[in-house]
């Protein structure tokens, strides 16, 4: 008994057993799915893991506080800047009271009494942390002569009206705090590089570190719900006109992206199901098979997800896009099989016989179609990206299941008593076209060849080039409040671009300090040579136990009693009020106490209050683990090209210091060749593989050549269309090419297999071309529905696939068929 007969018999005579088996399989899959479901929302996992720049981004995201930082901005009308000035402290106070806010930075800490007090509190540890020569120079200021000269000069300057002298005396009367805080001053570019107010004063920026325990999707959603509730009342106390309250930051993005993914799943699945349903019903006039098709696809998705979870343990949320892709691909099989079944019924075959005929005639084509598609997607494992590997494996598993289920379970939903439609206008129209194109293939073949060749030349010509969008914008939702807020803030603030992150980890504090000093020296040379614009490092903030020990010993040589006496006499002589200089006496006391060899080595991190705004600066450089640090290099131009990446990778490293260079722009520039390799090499390799497979299948060089030319036409017309409509490639939609090749191969296999075996050409070929047409339209609808996705990578993938499938369909119908008729005219004469 043939397999097709066996299947027909089982699905018609043992329906209960089949249902039982299907239910059992579905329950097992559901149990696996529910018990093991674990989703990874990190978009970074969609990119290849082997790049150290990407590893750096992951480390930065995971270990540094900045990822928990939210940026708030208030934007008012130009005539209300004074009101905004008044309102800013009120808003900052509201922010500080929020349960999710750990720290708030509302302005330069140097402008607040708390900020100055905090700095003074860490002056001693920072002073001891200076390099010995710098410490020696600084501490020499307490010599009696220098003290007298300093206060005399300040007295004269104050009399002359110098605001600087007055400020210096209030902040740092002895002149020891300034040099000690120089590291902070050098590192503190918050006001210079990231001002907290726009130059026209219409925008005020506030930085908030949230207390969320992680930056997981659900945690970010929870925090952002609270933040949005706060924003709804954030204008309380504002007495002016319109006031925009903007929020952006990692948590805002993650919350939006994860929520948009939920929307994408619902919208694209509903969209594709509705569109596919309409096309299917228009083609066959039946609902039950449609239901069967949906059920089979759902079961395929479930089985693929269950197996995927067993294989990978955790699935990336972006791979949910595979559901829509699977629907688009699996529908083809259903339409082909059911179309052939219906044709057999029209030919007066019985229900079981028609099932057997459909499987017999098209089962092989479906199997090979599924196999080539599965292999095509399995090639994604070569991408090196765990997300894409998962996507490839899930689709490969899903498509094989879909092929199997469409040849079996689908028929559970096809009732025996249901007569075939009497008048099928689509079939009639297709039949007429087939008759015409087979009888006189030359005109349509020439016309199609001319048009498709033109598009091929245009598609592969270097000019105009197909744009490649490697920006972060291509990975974030199209309509994103966080992105809009960031854009609004950027447009109001001075022009700047993302720096290169340089991550350094050391085994101990001294090594960390030594490493950063070497790096700083090297980068200073690069800056002088004009190879980089600016840089900032934690070099001076990294503690040096060696320097601290050395400087402490030096302190023991100082007669602090004598210094106090000189200070007293000098203040009195110059007419200063001693009461106003209590901080100077306290500093001398502190220095004397740390000079004690039994006292523990002071650490400024322990002295700085947890609520201090200065932690915003510290957290820029130090991870939760203080031995893990990051420095920043601003390139001369925004990083957009691989050449810039290469230049920076060559210049920035210091041979003896292990470091990771990273940053979004830097990483994307690093990934550009990978994406292009994905596009060219892997797609070409896949095309070669498919070509070999087709050669084995057809065993006819003419049909094989027709199939290959069809594929080339389809891909190049796709490229040409993307050029014409200025649709850029990005890191994700390059996947479309292999998908389009897989589908194009399927269509070719269906038509050319049918052509090889056809006896009544008009009847047999039309019986395949109609389902191919419907399958193409449903695949178009399936991928087209991805346009509804908020995630631009997913929607651009959908658009690219839809364009590719359209051209493959056109090439299959208007080139493959007449070409086969022209190449193998014997078949026609046999009829």
């Amino acid at each position, binding site marked *: 008994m043939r397999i097709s007969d066996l299947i027909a018999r089982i699905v018609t005579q043992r329906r209960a057993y089949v249902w039982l088996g299907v239910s059992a399989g579905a329950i097992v899959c559901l149990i696996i799915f529910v018990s093991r479901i674990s989703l990874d929302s990190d978009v970074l996992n969609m990119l290849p893991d082997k790049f150290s720049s990407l590893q750096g981004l992951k480390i930065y995201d995971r270990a540094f506080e900045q990822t928990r930082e939210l940026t708030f901005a208030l934007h008012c009308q130009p005539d209300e800047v004074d009101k905004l000035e*008044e309102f800013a402290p009120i808003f900052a106070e509201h922010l500080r009271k929020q349960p999710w806010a750990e720290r708030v930075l509302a302005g330069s800490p140097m402008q607040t009494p708390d900020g100055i007090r905090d700095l003074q509190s860490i002056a001693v540890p920072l002073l001891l942390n200076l390099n010995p020569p710098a410490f020696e120079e600084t501490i020499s200021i307490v010599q009696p002569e220098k003290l007298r000269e300093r206060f005399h000069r300040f007295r*004269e*300057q104050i009399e*002359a009206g110098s605001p600087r002298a007055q400020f210096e*005396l209030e902040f740092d009367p002895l002149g020891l705090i300034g040099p000690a805080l120089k590291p902070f001053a050098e590192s503190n570019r918050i006001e210079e590089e990231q001002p907290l107010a726009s130059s026209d004063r219409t925008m005020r920026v506030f930085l908030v570190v949230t207390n969320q325990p992680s930056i997981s999707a659900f945690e970010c959603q929870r925090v952002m719900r609270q933040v949005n509730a706060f924003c709804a009342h954030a204008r309380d106390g504002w007495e002016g006109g319109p006031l925009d309250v903007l929020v952006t930051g990692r948590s805002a993005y993650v919350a939006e992206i994860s929520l948009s993914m939920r929307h994408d799943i619902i919208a694209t699945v509903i969209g594709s199901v509705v569109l596919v349903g309409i096309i299917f019903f228009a083609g066959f006039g039946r609902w039950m098979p449609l239901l069967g098709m949906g059920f089979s696809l759902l079961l395929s998705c479930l089985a693929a997800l269950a197996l995927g979870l067993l294989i990978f343990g955790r699935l990336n949320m972006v791979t949910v896009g595979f559901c829509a892709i699977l629907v688009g691909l699996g529908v083809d099989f259903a339409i082909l099989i059911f179309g052939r079944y219906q044709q057999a019924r029209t030919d007066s075959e019985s229900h079981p016989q028609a099932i057997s005929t459909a499987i017999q005639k098209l089962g092989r084509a479906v199997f090979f179609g599924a196999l080539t598609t599965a292999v095509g997607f399995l090639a994604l494992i070569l991408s090196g990206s765990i997300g894409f590997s998962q996507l490839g494996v899930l689709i490969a598993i899903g498509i094989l299941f879909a092929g199997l289920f469409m040849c079996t379970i689908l028929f559970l939903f096809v009732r025996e008593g249901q007569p075939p439609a009497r008048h099928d206008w689509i079939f009639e129209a297709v039949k007429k076209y087939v008759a015409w194109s087979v009888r006189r293939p030359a005109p349509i073949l020439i016309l199609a060849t001319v048009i498709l060749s033109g598009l091929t030349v245009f598609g592969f010509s270097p000019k105009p080039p197909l744009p490649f969008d490697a920006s972060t914008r291509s990975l974030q939702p199209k309509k994103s409040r966080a992105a809009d807020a960031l854009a609004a803030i950027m447009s109001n603030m001075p022009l700047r671009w993302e720096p290169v992150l340089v991550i350094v980890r050391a085994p101990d504090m001294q090594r960390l300090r030594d490493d950063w000093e070497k790096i700083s020296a090297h980068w200073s040379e690069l800056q002088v040579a004009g190879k980089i614009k600016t840089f900032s490092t934690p070099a001076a903030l990294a503690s040096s136990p060696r320097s601290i020990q050395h400087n402490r010993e030096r302190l023991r040589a100082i007669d602090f009693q004598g210094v106090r006496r000189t200070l007293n006499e000098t203040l009195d002589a110059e*007419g200063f*009020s001693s009461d106003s200089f209590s901080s100077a006496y306290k500093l001398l006391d502190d220095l004397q106490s740390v000079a004690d060899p039994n006292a523990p080595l002071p650490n400024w991190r322990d002295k700085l209050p947890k609520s201090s705004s200065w932690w915003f600066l510290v957290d820029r450089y130090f991870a939760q683990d203080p031995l893990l640090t990051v420095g920043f290099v601003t390139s001369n131009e925004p990083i957009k090209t691989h050449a810039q990446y290469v230049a920076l990778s060559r210049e920035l490293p210091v041979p003896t210091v292990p470091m990771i260079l990273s940053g979004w722009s830097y990483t994307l520039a690093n990934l550009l060749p990978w994406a292009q390799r994905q596009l060219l090499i892997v797609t070409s390799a896949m095309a070669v593989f498919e070509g070999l497979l087709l050669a084995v299948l057809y065993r006819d060089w003419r049909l094989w050549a027709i199939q290959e030319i069809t594929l080339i036409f389809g891909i190049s017309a796709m490229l040409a269309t993307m050029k014409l409509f200025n649709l850029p490639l990005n890191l994700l939609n390059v996947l479309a090419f292999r998908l389009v090749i897989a589908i194009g191969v399927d269509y070719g296999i269906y038509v050319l297999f049918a052509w090889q075996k056809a006896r009544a050409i008009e009847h047999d070929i039309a019986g395949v071309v109609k389902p191919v047409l419907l399958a193409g339209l449903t695949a178009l609808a399936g991928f087209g529905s991805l346009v509804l996705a908020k995630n631009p990578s997913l929607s651009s993938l959908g658009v690219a696939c839809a364009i590719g499938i359209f051209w493959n369909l056109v090439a299959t119908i208007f080139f493959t068929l007449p070409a086969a008729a022209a190449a193998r005219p014997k078949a026609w004469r046999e009829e």
Partner: protein
Amino acid sequence: MNPIIQQVGRDQSLLAVARARRSICLTALLFLSIAPLANTEALSEADVKNLLARIRENRITQADFQEQRVIRLMKKPIVNSGKVWFQPPNKFRREVKGNSPSLTVSDGQQLWIYYPSFKSAERYSLGKRSPLDSVIASINSALNLENVENTFKITATRTGNGYELELTPRTAAMKRAFQKLDLRINDKLQAERTDMLQPNGDRIVTVYTNQKHAPVPPSTFDFTPPPGTDVSTPLGR
């Protein structure tokens, strides 16, 4: 006469003298307190606007000044004197004479403070949220009352032939510069005395004399540090 009686009589006369003296003092006090009441007249909002408009029409462009600064860092007040030139809306020049001379020049974008004794100068950029913006604004406000309605809450009283204005800052930036500014306007509607109380308790009292409103050459508000001057930018560029 009984000495006791004599003593009582003397006491009574003393008491009478004392009563008389007290009554004179009280009368004098009464007059003293009534007199200002009779001369002091709070101005309505409309009158304040009118007054400000009239003062602006009669802006002074130069004056001599004497300044007394009470700074908590110093035991004694610092006294300076000199000359000031002004051009609306925000240019001014201020020359301090004496033992600690200085020259302050603002062209609206930059503020220079030059100390001839030290051959050093400080340069501050204005208008970019500089902390000095509000200080400059307060100086300008005192001299020409430009735009004061928007930045200050103003109360004014008529005293004798002149006016007393009390300016309380509305904006946070101004509040950081000073708590209160009292301004005395003379009968010619010219600033005569300013008294600025700063948030840290420091106080600056300036008395203006010899006020004029003659044209001032534009070059008055230009400043180029002499060669060899040590220039610093305390608030950055």
